[in-house]
């Protein structure tokens, strides 16, 4: 039993942490968000240079050979800075599909350019009717000569506007909600028949509604197994859950600490509001929720890293906790900042929005409470 990081891990964490402290102040972030892509191209190039884009990839592809623990560490630090660069979409999700399910050809062709920062990916899996069921698919890929023809509508595709390629979940056999008969395709985002309607999301991220009209792909574009894509999808989504939950842990740390600091400075009725016991106890509960979240983050990351059968259960436990804690910490931080908490001028509201976004991504707390009970 050991909560210590390896030397290599510590170095990585330090380097991400330094970056956030030096380059991700509130004003910096505003500039990044205002750039054309909705994030800083310069930052992305630096991530590439520092090797962060290669963290989860095998060393043979030029990667760092990291796993769940490294993803956890990076995302927790990113959460502290509310990093808007699409690390989740491109590296954790898109990259996850390539490294876990990609063919040798796909890996050789794409991973190096991803690591170099030249490839943007997005994961197109949400369907309007499917809610959080990854297997509820009306997007179809129909065999068509040597290849397949994809038609359907994918919603809220994060990083959709910037993606060069889309990882698309489709139904190739069976009924709408069957667990089998699902296939994952890699689709060129600019292919004929792909249409994107782009928009901002509540957390200043980038999303798209993507429609596919008879988009032609070849059998070589399949990631993972034909008709048996669900286990791969679930595995990548579990990695994604760890990533966003780690981000939430970082965000909550900033929120509770910021609130405590604010409460020491802000005076009302001639005393700092942090001297009021009712507020003190709420800040203590924010602190406790953060600590408990961090504990489950460690547990889930270690379970994933060791490939345990309990990993999925730990992941769902973590998501439930993040749902509950993120809501409490976010709402209280806004409330305790009073009028100022309601404005875009303080960072508090932005953390709150990011936590709100995370709470619905990959299934909300109710969904994962139910999944936890069934696992």
């Amino acid at each position: 039993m050991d909560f210590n990081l390896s030397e290599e891990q510590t170095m990585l964490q330090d380097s991400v942490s330094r970056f956030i402290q030096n380059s991700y102040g509130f004003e910096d972030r505003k500039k990044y968000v205002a750039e054309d892509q909705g994030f800083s191209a310069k930052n992305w190039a630096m991530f590439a240079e520092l090797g962060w884009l290669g963290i989860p990839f095998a060393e043979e592809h030029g990667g760092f050979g990291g796993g769940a623990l490294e993803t956890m560490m990076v995302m927790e630090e990113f959460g502290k800075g509310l990093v808007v660069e699409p690390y989740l979409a491109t590296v954790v999700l898109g990259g996850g599909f390539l490294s876990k399910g990609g063919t040798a050809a796909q890996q050789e062709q794409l991973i190096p350019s991803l690591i170099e920062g030249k490839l943007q990916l997005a994961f197109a899996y949400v369907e309007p009717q499917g809610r959080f069921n990854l297997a509820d698919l009306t997007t179809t890929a129909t065999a068509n000569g040597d290849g397949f023809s994809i038609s359907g509508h994918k919603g809220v595709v994060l990083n959709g506007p910037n993606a060069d390629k889309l990882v698309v979940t489709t139904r190739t056999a069976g009924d709408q909600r069957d667990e089998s008969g699902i296939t994952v395709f890699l689709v060129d985002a600019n292919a004929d028949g792909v249409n994107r309607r782009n928009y901002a999301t509540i957390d200043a991220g980038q999303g798209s509604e993507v429609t596919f009209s008879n988009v032609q792909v070849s059998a070589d574009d399949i990631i993972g197994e034909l008709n048996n894509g669900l286990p791969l999808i679930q595995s990548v989504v579990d990695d994604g859950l760890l990533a966003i939950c780690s981000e939430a842990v970082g965000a909550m740390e900033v929120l509770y600490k910021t609130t405590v600091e604010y409460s020491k400075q802000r005076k009302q009725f001639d005393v700092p509001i942090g001297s009021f016991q009712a507020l003190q106890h709420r800040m203590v509960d924010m602190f406790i929720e953060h600590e408990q979240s961090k504990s489950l983050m460690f547990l889930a990351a270690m379970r994933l890293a060791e490939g345990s059968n309990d990993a999925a259960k730990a992941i769902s436990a973590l998501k439930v906790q993040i749902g509950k804690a993120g809501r409490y910490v976010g709402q209280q931080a806004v409330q305790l900042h009073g009028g100022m908490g309601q404005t875009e001028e303080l960072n508090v509201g932005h953390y709150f929005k990011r936590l709100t976004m995370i709470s619905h991504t990959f299934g909300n707390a109710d969904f994962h409470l139910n999944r936890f009970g069934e696992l």
Partner: protein
Amino acid sequence: MDLNFSAEDIAFRDEVRAFLKDNWTDQDRKDMGNGLSMAHDMPVRWHRRLAEQGWAAPNWPLELGGCPWTPTQKYIFDIECANANCPRLISFGLNLVAPVLYTFGNKEQQDKYLPDILSAKTWWCQGYSEPGAGSDLAGLSTRAELSEDGTHYVVNGQKTWTSTARYADMIFCLVRTDPTAKIKQQGISFLLIDMKTPGITVKPISTLDGQQHVNDTFFDNVKVPVENRIGEENMGWTYAKLLLTHERTGIAGVARSKNRLEELKVAASTEPTGTGQAPLIDEPSFRAKVSQIEIDLMALEITDLRTLAGVQKGGAPGPESSILKVRGTEIQQAIAELFMDCAGYYSQPFVQDTHWGDYEGEMIGADYSTSTALQYFSTRPATVYGGSSEVQRNIISKAVLGLSKLG
């Protein structure tokens, strides 16, 4: 004991309904958009129609344009308007400065300002809060110095959270006229200030919901005629305070929350769950949350009616009416949150155009889902503004339970 309305009250209700049917059309409702009552110019449009009918200011004294309604009838009027999805009237003129004017203002002031408030000709905003004076309103520091010749005040300082300041013709302010007063509630005066006076600058504040309804308002050597002071110098706190516990009608927002909850049920009954089975409304944990809010709201409605019955017997509502603010806003927030839950992924896109009723393009997700996040973010301030939940609990603690301040 009887919850039913009297025959007279039912006749009144029918009269209101008939009026609403003719004057608040389906097109008006559509223009309101997804429950976004602050949208565009809807409150102004509605205020003018009510003013024509003589119903814009039910609470005012009869002779000034009020309505000869009982508290129950006022309550019925509120409910019917909420049920018809009418916008809330902007209250700064009608319900906030007007009572101060007709209670403490002189005849000249009353004649000058009240008719234009009633007819929606002039618009007012409120200058109470300051950056250093939020929950602790009496901690304000905007300074007003009387000129040597005694003809005007010179005002310097900053007010914040001034809603609609950019559209307002007038602002009513609490300002400090005696900085040496021993108790901070003393030494405060109540001034009416023309927003066009030189030295006033308004700077919008962006809030979480992406809107810019509130502002910072700066005063730089602003000259205010001494006749724009209400009542005596240094007595402004008393005037403002006395009105704070009045006019609590509708503070619980029961009728509006009930409407929202019904809309939520409709939305959730069309929302699939990915199981191929029942819609979201029939999913046990979601349904339980809806039922719980519905029950909280039933309770609050009766608590509201009990307060009303107390008022009907005579007198202003007591400090226990803080319950209405505390629970009413909690319920509004809970409904907004459930709407987010209902929309799931489609709570995440944030496209301002699609929020408004006049948007004609294609929607993202279901019609209702587009504004769920905006609504969620814009209900957050409900527990901060107008006396935060913490302050309301302090009021109940002290005034109802008799518990003393910290020792």
